[in-house]
């Protein structure tokens, strides 16, 4: 059992896995990135004071606008929202923590380290300078050669790992760990908004990860997905005609859901704040929920409205115009619902409400201007102008306004201290004026092209107003930081409920809540209101989750009747391994950034990167191993609560399924990219890009090997259920051997293709040869990496089986089996696509 240092010690913050601590870490770190991104903005807004050259060179200017966008969208907005999600959601649903506390800590450390990696990219020859949208082929080394550009992309990829781990955690928690009586319909609106956010995140970020893996491969090992080269003679060779459009599809398929991902938590917080401070329940609450669900689903069907001026045909444009207008309708409903909630209210204009109310006004203005953009005839002119910039800042920073309200709303709960109300109002005043002074002139000066510092002279006054507004907005945040910091020491003590009319469960416990949230008893809404029961009416023998060594049986909440071994199992709250895992992955990704064209630079520079990469591997591997062996106990939720639709699926199994769902989207994006490129190239003409030596036989052999290995995993499961230790070991070893056979076979095939010398392919058919080779090696290579990961886990399972582990509880083998079957099924798609068709 790990013990928990007190909150005042530094060590506590490195080892904690408690959701409240992690929430505070996220919030504080996100605010730091707000400052960083804001300073970048002030830099280029200074440049924009007058048209023409200024304090930044052209390249530095491009880096500033790019980093501002990336930092704000990824490293500030969502993490800020997830600070609250982490803190509040388990309390609102009546859970003691998230389903996988160590994974929660891992999410945080990966987030922090990915941000540090991004910051380092500035020092590696300049960070990425192609806009946060990273359009192709500007994003390939031929046009943006800096090492820092690659590092920024790797940092974003690392961030996505953090997000995916988080999604798995939240989805499992919200579906499986709700209190009795909290059916999905009955969930508070903030929790609903987070639920939908993480569903969207799971699928959208997988698509972006695919795009970033492909881009990283282009930048680091020389694949040709986005390549469009101009030769020395000036003649143009297009290695991939579809390069530009492929990127825009991949990016915007992610990009559009992303804007709702960043907005939804704000919407949910605003709904809570409106209810609390108007003293009225949300009008049309059921429709509000339905509207949110509709938006979440539809968000995946509107992405081409970012591409109205590309070469897509009229029918497609019409379809996406229709879906875009379609998605604005649920927002109309939600806006009206919030407005009508004010009627017959008892409204207190406290700081949280000022921000939520003001945020709604700003969002409405942003939304109206969005309808302009949805009318394609208008979009034709608005494309690439400040109209777009002003629109999305009104809606996105409108969301931030709501989240600032949330910060004031939950600050007393999180710290036990009240903030200073007068200073809060001062903040709001400066903020609202600064915001509108910054962004409204952009509508007037809308004809300015995006990302330029040279613009028509008659628009100068508007840009100057905007710069002043930006400074004012920044200053308003200083007021907030001062207020909150001071309140920590001299603020009034906060009560439990803090706000009159606050109704959700987090307000029924102390401020701040105790470590394990509900010490008065087990929360239940079963009798119509929240009450705390003395004991779980359905005490059953439940196993432990979170991947530690198998636990002794116990009930849902730790205070159990007499157990087999006779001691009380307390849930664990601390582990140092998430931190080390984050560090290891940071080093690994940093080391990777040193790759150029498939190898490290010669001499000292390359040597340093190689060493860092090696260190990263070592630290990551060691941390994973220690985490696997750690005695970290998390009780399985009792079936007393609400678990629809996943009752009967233990937490870890659900987590594995959710993870595999995102992996499906990842491979889907890779396969989709391949098909897209191949159609653009001419499906049958593709064969001209592939040597005769590339035959189906190696693929066929690999198919048999994998299928058999899936069968042996099933045998291992059966053997362990029968309690046969040697049967289990034997089957697992066979699986391992078959997997190795797969890899060796693949290795032989690849080496052979690398070294062919035909008329057409005088230097072999390698990663950089053409787009057909790139898609082949990268897609099957990604699959191969999944096989390698699986084999490493198999070795671990064999070792544990040797020590007698899986004779009673064989669930790890079952979860591994799910993963392995998935890897198998993916191959069944890849084989025909890359070997037969």
């Amino acid at each position, binding site marked *: 059992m790990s013990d928990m240092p007190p909150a005042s010690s530094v060590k506590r913050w490195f080892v904690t896995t408690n959701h409240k601590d992690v929430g505070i870490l996220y919030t504080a770190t996100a605010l730091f990135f707000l400052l960083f991104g804001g300073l970048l903005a002030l830099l280029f807004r200074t440049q924009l004071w007058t048209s023409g050259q200024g304090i930044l060179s052209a390249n530095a200017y491009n880096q500033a606008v790019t980093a501002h966008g990336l930092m704000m969208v990824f490293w500030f907005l969502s993490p800020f929202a997830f600070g609250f999600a982490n803190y509040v959601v388990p309390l609102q649903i009546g859970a003691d923590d998230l389903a996988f506390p160590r994974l929660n800590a891992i999410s945080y450390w990966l987030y922090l380290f990915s941000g540090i990696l991004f910051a380092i990219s500035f020092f590696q020859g300049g960070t990425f300078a192609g806009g946060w949208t990273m359009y192709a082929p500007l994003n390939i080394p031929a046009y943006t050669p800096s090492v820092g550009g690659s590092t920024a992309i790797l940092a974003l990829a690392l961030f996505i790992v953090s997000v995916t781990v988080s999604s798995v955690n939240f989805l499992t928690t919200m579906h499986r760990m709700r209190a009795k009586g909290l059916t999905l319909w009955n969930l508070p609106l903030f929790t609903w908004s987070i639920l939908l956010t993480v569903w969207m995140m799971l699928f959208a970020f997988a698509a972006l990860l695919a795009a970033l893996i492909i881009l990283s491969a282009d930048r680091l090992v020389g694949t040709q997905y986005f390549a469009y080269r101009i030769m020395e003679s000036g003649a143009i060779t297009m290695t991939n005609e579809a*390069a530009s459009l492929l990127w825009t599809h991949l990016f915007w398929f992610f990009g559009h859901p992303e804007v709702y991902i960043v907005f939804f938590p704000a919407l949910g917080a605003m709904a809570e704040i409106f209810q609390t401070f108007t003293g009225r*329940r949300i009008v049309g609450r059921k429709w509000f929920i339905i509207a949110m669900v509709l938006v979440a689903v539809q968000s995946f069907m509107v992405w081409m409205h970012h591409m109205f001026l590309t070469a897509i045909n009229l029918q497609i444009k019409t379809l996406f115009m229709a879906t875009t207008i379609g998605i604005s309708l649920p927002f109309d409903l939600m806006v009206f619902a919030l407005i009508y909630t004010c009627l017959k209210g008892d409204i207190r204009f406290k700081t949280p409400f000022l921000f939520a109310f003001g945020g709604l006004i700003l969002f409405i203005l942003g939304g109206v201007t969005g309808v302009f953009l949805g009318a394609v005839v208008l979009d034709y002119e608005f494309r690439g102008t400040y109209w777009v910039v002003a629109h999305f800042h009104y809606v996105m920073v409108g969301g931030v306004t709501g989240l600032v309200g949330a910060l004031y709303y939950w600050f007393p709960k999180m710290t036990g201290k009240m903030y200073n109300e007068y200073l809060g109002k001062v903040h709001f005043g400066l903020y609202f004026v600064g915001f509108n002074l910054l962004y409204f002139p952009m509508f007037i000066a809308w004809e300015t092209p995006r990302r330029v510092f040279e613009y*028509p002279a008659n628009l100068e006054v508007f840009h100057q107003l905007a710069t002043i507004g930006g400074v004012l907005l920044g200053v308003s945040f200083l007021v907030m930081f001062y207020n909150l910091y001071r309140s920590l020491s001299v603020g009034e003590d906060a009560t439990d409920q803090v706000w009159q009319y606050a109704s959700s469960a987090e307000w029924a416990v102390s401020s701040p809540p105790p470590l394990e949230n509900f010490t008065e008893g087990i929360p239940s809404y079963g009798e119509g209101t929240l009450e705390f029961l003395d004991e779980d009416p359905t005490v059953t023998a439940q196993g432990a989750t979170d991947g530690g060594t198998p636990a002794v049986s116990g009930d849902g909440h730790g205070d159990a009747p007499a157990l087999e071994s006779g001691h009380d199992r307390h849930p664990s709250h601390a582990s140092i391994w998430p931190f080390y895992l984050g560090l290891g992955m940071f080093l690994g990704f940093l080391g990777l950034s040193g790759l150029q064209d498939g190898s490290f630079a010669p001499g000292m520079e390359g040597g340093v990167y190689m060493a860092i990469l090696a260190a990263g591997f070592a630290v990551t591997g060691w941390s994973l191993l220690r985490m696997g062996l750690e005695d970290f106990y998390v009780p399985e939720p009792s079936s007393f609560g609400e678990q629809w639709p996943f009752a009967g699926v233990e937490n870890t199994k659900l987590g594995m399924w959710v993870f595999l769902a995102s992996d499906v989207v990842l491979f889907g994006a890779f396969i989709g990219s391949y098909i897209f490129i191949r159609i653009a190239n001419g499906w049958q003409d593709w064969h001209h890009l592939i040597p005769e030596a590339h035959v189906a036989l190696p693929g066929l052999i690999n198919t048999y090997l994998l299928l058999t290995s899936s069968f042996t995993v099933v045998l291992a499961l059966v053997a362990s259920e029968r309690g046969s230790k040697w049967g289990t070991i034997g089957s697992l070893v066979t699986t391992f051997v078959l997997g190795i056979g797969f890899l060796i076979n693949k290795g032989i095939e690849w080496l052979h293709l690398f070294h062919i010398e035909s008329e057409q392919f005088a230097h072999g058919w390698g990663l950089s040869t053409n787009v057909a080779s790139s898609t082949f090696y990268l897609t099957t290579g990604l699959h191969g990496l999944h096989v390698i990961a699986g084999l490493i886990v198999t070795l671990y399972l064999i070792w544990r089986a040797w020590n007698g582990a899986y004779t009673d509880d064989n669930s790890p083998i079952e979860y591994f089996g799910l993963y392995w079957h998935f890897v198998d099924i993916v191959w069944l798609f890849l084989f025909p696509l890359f070997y037969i068709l």
Partner: protein
Amino acid sequence: MTLGTFITAIGSLLSIGGLVTSEGATIQTPAEVFDQVFTFFLVLGTAVFIVVTVYMVYNAYKYRHGSEHAKKAPDEDRPSLGEIPTGGGGGKKLALSFTLSAIIVVSLIIWTYGLLLHVETGAAQTDAADKVVIDVEGYQFGWDFTYQNGHTATNTLRVPRGTVVELMVTSRDVFHTIGSPPLRFKADAIPGQYTDTWFVADQTGEYTAQCYELCGAGHSFMEATIVVMEPEAYDEWYANTSATNETSDSGNQSSTDSSQAIGATPEVAL
């Protein structure tokens, strides 16, 4: 009825103004379409925003804590700690507002859709004799304009006033976007793809076109000049050109293959 004829029929039904005929009757240019629609949206959008905001602020003030109205509702109507979340009534008002806004928004889009069809097909509908077709190739950091006779000019585009000018746009390297606010045209310049747009200039003079997609360090300076000339002056100038390359003060020699550029049909791709 072919798809093209069908689209034309819808376009003329729904759009304000007619299509060009070979006698040179007035055509509603994309610039006019934009100005009409933009003005209408602006007026309507501002009105909606003002009405909604005033309503919000008024009611927030009316029901402020301590006012007569705020005290009216009984305590059971107010949320209490630990209750299961439920809705707050008032659904009828919500349904009405929502339906109204939906009707407005959808009508707006149907109206603009008709105009979209006109804009999309306007150039294709114009006879070849009545229009000027230019191939545009963007590159880091300038624009090459190739005329129908093969003549290529860099960073300067000369066009006749009052004539449909159709631009077939692509890029030699990265993603650019060419556009000119006074002339109201814009097109993405995508390597490996062709996009097209058209405009009609009403007045002679010199206009600027800029790049609207971040394309590298020179993005801010990537400008072209569009010189709108009287038709007779244009014809005279055009007759004196030949399939050679002409550069402007930016001094960039272009080297496009002119036979590849003329009359390239737009590729449609997803």
